């Protein structure tokens, strides 16, 4: 059997394919990796909107304002037995106003100063979690996010709030620094009681 003689254009196509592969390879090396990464990491990482307490943070689907961040060792909630901790509850009071669609804040994640990650969601009714209504567009909701964590994670920690329960990748998330350093972490919120509250502003 004889192989057909290659034409000149065949070499051209071959060169193009090789060039395409080379470009893809270098782009893959250049861009943040998506492979081997979990939800919301690498190329799928969220767009972090850093903010401060009291100033609205504009997210893709709505506006979020962190009203206060406090520490507590006792947690009270209407209709529920109070909860106490040997560690500390990070309590974030915030408002959320969706823009064009109904929406809510589903996840609060504290990145500890020591690389540990503390995640609480709106699902379930455990000791910590996110309590936030699901308001229609233009209506402001008052919400509370609670994350329980050990005190040694407090210095340098920040809290991230997201609208997506499972995968916050490629979407806006709001981040606020807790403002606790090594000197204050031991006493932050010790002996204090925080209240979990939620509701819709102007509708009650």
């Amino acid at each position: 059997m004889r192989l057909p003689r290659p034409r000149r254009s065949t070499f051209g196509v071959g060169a193009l394919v090789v060039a395409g592969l080379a470009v893809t390879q270098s782009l893959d090396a250049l861009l943040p990796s998506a492979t081997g990464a979990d939800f919301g990491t690498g190329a799928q990482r969220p767009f972090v909107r850093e903010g401060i307490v009291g100033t609205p943070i504009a997210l893709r689907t709505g506006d979020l304002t962190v009203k206060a961040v406090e520490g507590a060792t006792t947690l009270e909630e209407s209709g529920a037995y109070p909860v106490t901790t040997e560690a500390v509850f990070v309590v974030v009071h915030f408002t959320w106003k969706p823009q064009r669609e109904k929406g809510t804040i589903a996840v609060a994640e504290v990145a500890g100063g020591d690389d540990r990650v503390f995640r609480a969601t709106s699902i379930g009714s455990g000791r910590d979690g996110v309590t936030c209504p699901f308001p229609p567009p233009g209506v402001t909701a008052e919400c509370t996010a609670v994350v329980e964590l050990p005190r040694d994670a407090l210095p340098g920690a920040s809290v991230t709030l997201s609208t997506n329960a499972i995968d916050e990748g490629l979407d806006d998330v709001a981040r606020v620094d807790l403002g606790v350093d090594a000197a204050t972490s031991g006493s932050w919120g010790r002996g204090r009681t925080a209240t979990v509250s939620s509701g819709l502003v102007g509708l009650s």
Partner: protein
Amino acid sequence: MVRETGERFVARARRWALDLPPLALLTGGFLVVLLVSGLFGGLREVDTDPAGTVTAGVPVETEPLTVTVKDAYWVTAFPEAADSPDSPDSADSADSDRRIYPDEPTRGRFVVVEATVLNTSDETVDYDVLREAVSLDGAQGFVSTRDTALVPAAQARPTYVYTMPEKRIFGTAQPGVTYTVAYLWDQSAAVPLPQRLTVAVNGHTWREDTLDFHLGWKDPAVEATGPFAVPERRAS
């Protein structure tokens, strides 16, 4: 012509293989498995460590949790002393929505294991893993979450897992935080409990999911077991 050569080759290979002694075939098969699995990271190591012992008050260190079993008993309602005068809210009777409402078992009996659980990993551990951390063995007549028929204790998953004393669902365990929890199994009161029930603490393996490639704690495996007397506990 190529096809003919191929057929002749297959026929020759078949004759050659059939002529081999069985021992050579077995050895050959073993070598093929070894070589092929080697290309994909080798066969998984089998955990041959003997299971440890669960003793009341002694921590069992597993991944990702350290579990200390404190007590085991059975009740007809949980918590059994919901309305006792010791409860901190009974003085404040006006605020009645703050009392803890008891759960009733569907078949007459809750087997309760009280424990403390510490998450030693660097990330939040979720309900599925927490629920599998403690299991029972050596008894019959448990209510299954999947099946309508009663199942042996080893197949039963706890009906509820609560943090105590506030009785919230133990849905997340944050890194470095120790939780006081109660595992509740729903058992038929018609089936007698043995003198001693085996309480097992299970560990998990951090690995990639074979279907969606996300990392997680998987494959619950018994890390330690211990016999526990399970007396009835009544509201005093």
